[in-house]
C-alpha cells in the first residue's frame, strides 16, 4: 500500500485564495500597512529618479531648481543618491510594517486555530499548513506591493511636477521608474513572506488536540 499524503500546489493556491477572499476585510487591513510602506519606499525612489533625470539633462536651470528644492548638489556632481536621512526613514517604515504584518498574521493564526486543528485531524501534514500561510502571504504581498508601488510612483510623479514644473515630465526616466517600482514590489513581497514565517511555523507545530480544546 502506498502511503501517500498529498496536497497539490494548485489546490493549496485555491484554498489560500479562497481564505483571503472570504476574509477580505481582514486581509485588506493586514495588507494596508504593507501598501503604505511600499508606497513610501517607491515614492522616495521615484522622486529621486525624476530629480536624477532632470540633473542628467544638463540644463543649468534644472540644476538651480533642484538646489532650490532642497537637493544638495556639489558643483560638477552628476548623480543624486538617496540621502542618509531618507534611507533611515524608509528602513524604519519597513521595520514598522514587518512588525505589523507579524502581529496581524499571529492574530489570524489564533483566529484559525480550530480550522488548522481540523485540517490536521483530516490528515494534513505540518508543511501543508505552512504552505497555505506562505501562499496567502505571497498573494497578499504581491497585491499589496503592486498597489503600493503604483501609488508611490503616482505620488512621486505628481510631487515632481509640482516642484520642478512640467520640465520634469519632459525627461521622464521611464526605465529607472519601472526598475524602482519592481524593486519596491520585490521588497514588499519579501517583507510579507518574512512576516508570515513565525506565525506559520507556530500554526503548523500545534497539536490537533490543542486546537480542539480552544473555545470559540
Amino acid at each position, binding site marked *: 500500500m502506498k*502511503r*501517500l*499524503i*498529498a*496536497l*497539490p500546489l494548485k*489546490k493549496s493556491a485555491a*484554498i489560500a485564495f*479562497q*481564505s483571503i477572499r*472570504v*476574509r477580505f476585510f481582514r486581509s485588506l487591513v493586514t495588507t494596508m500597512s504593507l501598501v503604505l510602506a511600499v508606497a513610501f519606499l517607491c515614492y522616495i525612489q521615484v522622486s529621486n529618479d525624476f530629480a536624477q533625470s532632470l540633473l542628467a539633462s544638463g540644463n543649468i536651470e534644472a540644476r538651480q531648481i533642484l538646489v532650490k528644492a532642497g537637493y544638495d548638489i556639489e558643483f560638477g556632481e552628476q548623480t543624486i543618491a538617496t540621502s542618509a536621512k531618507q534611507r533611515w526613514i524608509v528602513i524604519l517604515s519597513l521595520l514598522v510594517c514587518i512588525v505589523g504584518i507579524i502581529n496581524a498574521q499571529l492574530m489570524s493564526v489564533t483566529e484559525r486555530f*480550530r*480550522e488548522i*486543528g*481540523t*485540517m*490536521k*485531524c*483530516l*490528515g*494534513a*501534514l*505540518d508543511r*501543508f499548513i505552512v504552505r497555505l500561510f506562505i501562499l496567502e502571504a505571497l498573494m497578499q504581498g504581491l497585491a499589496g506591493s503592486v498597489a503600493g508601488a503604483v501609488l508611490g510612483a503616482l505620488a512621486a510623479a505628481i510631487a515632481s511636477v509640482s516642484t520642478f514644473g512640467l520640465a520634469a515630465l519632459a525627461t521622464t526616466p521611464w526605465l529607472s521608474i519601472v526598475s524602482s517600482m519592481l524593486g519596491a514590489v520585490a521588497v514588499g513581497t519579501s517583507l510579507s513572506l518574512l512576516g508570515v514565517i513565525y506565525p506559520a511555523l507556530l500554526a503548523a507545530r500545534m*497539536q*490537533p*488536540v490543542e486546537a*480542539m480544546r480552544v473555545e*470559540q
Partner: protein
Amino acid sequence: MSSATIVRVSDVKKQFDLGKIVVEVLKGIDLEVEKGKYISIMGPSGSGKSTLFNMIGGLDKPTSGKVFIDEVDIAQLDAYELAWLRCRKIGYIFQTFNLIPVMTALENVTLPMTFAGLSNDDATERGMELLKQVGLDGRHAHKPSELSGGQQQRVAVARALANSPAIILADEPTGNLDLKTGEDIIDLLKTLSNEHQVTVISATHDYKMLNVSDQVIWIRDGVIDKIQERDELEIRTGGLENSHS
C-alpha cells in the same frame, strides 16, 4: 474477520501536569474493540472519556500504556504516518462540527480525499455521492454558516466517511443538537456504519446512543466501570421518546 480486533488499548494512563498538581485523568484503561461494532463510551463530564477518545484517535499521546490501531502501536508512528493514519484509517466527528468555515459543503467533504491523493473529478464525484447519502442533495455549494446544526453535522459525517476509514470516532456528535436532530444523526451514523462496514466509537453522555450501540463502555473517574453488551442493556429511553413525539 468478523471478530478481528481493530482497536486495542492496553493499560493506558494519562496525566496532565498543571504545574503545582498533577491530575491523573486515565488510571489504566484496557480495552478491545472488534471490527464493525458500534461502541459508545459513556460517562459523566470529567470522567476522562474525551481524553480516552483523543488517545484512540491519535490526537494525544498516553503518559504510559499503548494504543494499537489495526495492531499498529500509534506511539511508534512518525508525523507522516500519523497523518496518513488520520487521513485514511480514521474519520472524526466532533461535537462542534468543525467544518472549515471558508469552504463549501462539497469542499469540506473532498478535502480529506485531496489529501489522500484523489484527483479532483473523482473526489467531486464521491463527495456528491456521500452528500446524497447523508441527505444533503443539492446543498453542496452551501457554506457551513448557511447550514443548520444538524445539516453541518451531516456534512461532517460525510467528511468522516470520505476515505472509507476503518474507524469513525465521534466525540459527542449530538452534544450541540436538539433531541430530534440528534436522533437523526445517530440513525444516520448507524445506517452508514452498517453500509460501509465501519467501526464507530463514540464518546457521549446522550442516552439516545444506547439504542443503537452494540457495546457500551462506562467510564468513571478514569477507570472502566463496566462494559455492557447490547442484550444486557436496560433500555430506558422510552420515556424520552414519548416526551417529544
